[in-house]
C-alpha cells in the first residue's frame, strides 16, 4: 500500500468513499493492462454485493480471456463449453428458478461459435442475464478476426483489414436479439470512462431486478477494448474505440420494458 506523510488524517476507515467490493477476490487478474474485463468484473461484483445476492447467484463463464472468472468473483460459477453458456444457464435457471443466473461471454464465444445458443436462448425468453463483452477480436488466441471485427480493421487473420465482400460485415448480435420477442431489456454500454462505468453498473442493477419479474432475457452488450490484440496502449485503445467502434456499435438502450 502506498501512503504519503500528511494524508494520514484523511485515510481513516470512516472517511472511506470508495473501494472495490469484497466479492472481488484478492487474486491478481490475468487480464492485460487496460483490459475492460477487470472493470466489468468489479461492477458486477459490486451489484451482487449491494443487492445481497452472493449466496443466490450462479454465473456461467465462457471460453475466452474471462474463462478464469471463478478465480476473481466470489460467487458460484460454472464454466461452459465454448459458446454454450446460454444453454447451461437455461438448465440452471429452470432447475433453480429462485437463483440469479447470468452468463458472461466475449464476442468470439457469444457471436461466433455460440450464435445458435444465444439466439435460441433469447428467442425462448429464458429468464437470465447475458453479459456480452464485445472487443471485435479474438483476444485470448492472438487477435484473430471475429464476426464483430470492423470493416477495414486489421487482425492477425485479416492483415490487410477486413473486406466486407469476402469476409462479411460486423455481426451486430445485440441488434438481432433486440428484435426477438423473448428479450425484455437489451442495451449497449461501455466501461472506458468513469461516467460510462456508472451507466453500465446501473444497467446491470436494472437487469438483476428485472430477472425477479420473470419477463424474459436481459441482454447487456459492453463495447470494450483489447489493447494487446489491437496493438495499442490502453489509453490509445480507449480513444480508438470511441472514434471507430462507437459509430458502428452506438451506445444506448435498444429495448426497454414497456411499463
Amino acid at each position: 500500500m502506498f501512503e504519503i506523510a500528511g494524508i494520514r488524517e484523511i485515510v481513516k476507515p470512516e472517511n472511506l468513499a470508495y473501494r472495490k467490493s469484497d466479492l472481488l477476490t484478492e487474486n491478481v487478474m490475468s487480464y492485460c493492462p487496460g483490459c475492460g474485463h477487470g472493470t466489468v468484473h468489479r461492477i458486477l461484483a459490486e451489484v451482487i454485493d449491494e443487492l445481497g445476492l452472493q449466496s443466490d447467484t450462479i454465473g456461467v463463464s465462457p471460453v475466452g480471456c474471462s474463462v478464469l472468472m471463478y478465480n476473481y468473483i466470489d460467487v458460484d460459477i460454472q464454466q461452459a463449453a465454448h459458446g454454450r453458456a446460454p444453454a447451461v444457464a437455461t438448465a440452471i435457471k429452470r432447475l433453480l428458478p429462485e437463483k440469479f443466473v447470468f452468463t458472461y461471454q466475449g464476442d468470439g464465444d457469444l457471436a461466433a461459435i455460440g450464435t445458435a445458443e444465444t439466439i435460441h436462448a433469447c428467442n425462448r425468453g429464458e429468464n437470465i442475464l447475458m453479459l456480452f463483452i464485445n472487443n471485435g477480436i479474438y483476444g485470448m488466441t492472438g487477435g484473430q478476426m471475429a464476426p464483430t471485427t470492423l470493416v477495414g480493421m486489421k487482425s492477425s487473420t485479416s492483415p490487410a483489414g477486413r473486406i466486407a465482400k469476402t469476409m462479411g460485415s460486423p455481426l451486430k448480435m445485440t441488434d438481432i436479439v433486440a428484435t426477438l420477442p423473448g428479450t425484455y431489456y437489451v442495451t449497449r454500454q461501455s466501461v472506458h470512462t468513469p461516467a460510462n462505468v456508472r451507466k453500465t453498473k446501473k444497467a446491470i442493477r436494472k437487469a438483476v431486478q428485472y430477472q425477479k419479474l420473470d419477463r424474459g432475457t436481459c441482454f447487456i452488450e459492453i463495447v470494450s477494448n483489447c489493447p494487446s490484440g489491437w496493438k495499442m496502449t490502453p489509453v490509445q485503445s480507449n480513444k480508438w474505440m470511441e472514434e471507430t467502434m462507437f459509430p458502428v456499435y452506438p451506445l444506448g438502450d435498444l429495448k426497454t420494458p414497456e411499463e
Partner: protein
Amino acid sequence: MAKIRGSIVVNVERCKGCEVCMVSCPTGTIAMAKEVNGKGYNYAFPANPDLCIGCASCAMGCLDGVIAVYKTKI
C-alpha cells in the same frame, strides 16, 4: 465554506500501470511512478496529493480495482 479533501491509496503490487486513472483524474493528482512494482509495471501514485478532491473517478475507471478513495471535509 468547508473544503473537501480527498486521498487515494493505491495497492501498488496489483497495479498494472495502464494509465487510465491518470487520464480520468480531473485534477491531475495521479502520475505514474518512475520505479516499477514486483511485476515490472510503472504503478500509479498520487503525485500531487493536495489536489485530490475524492471524486473517485480514478477508482471507478480502474480496471483492476486497486484504488481506494477517502474523502473528508476540513
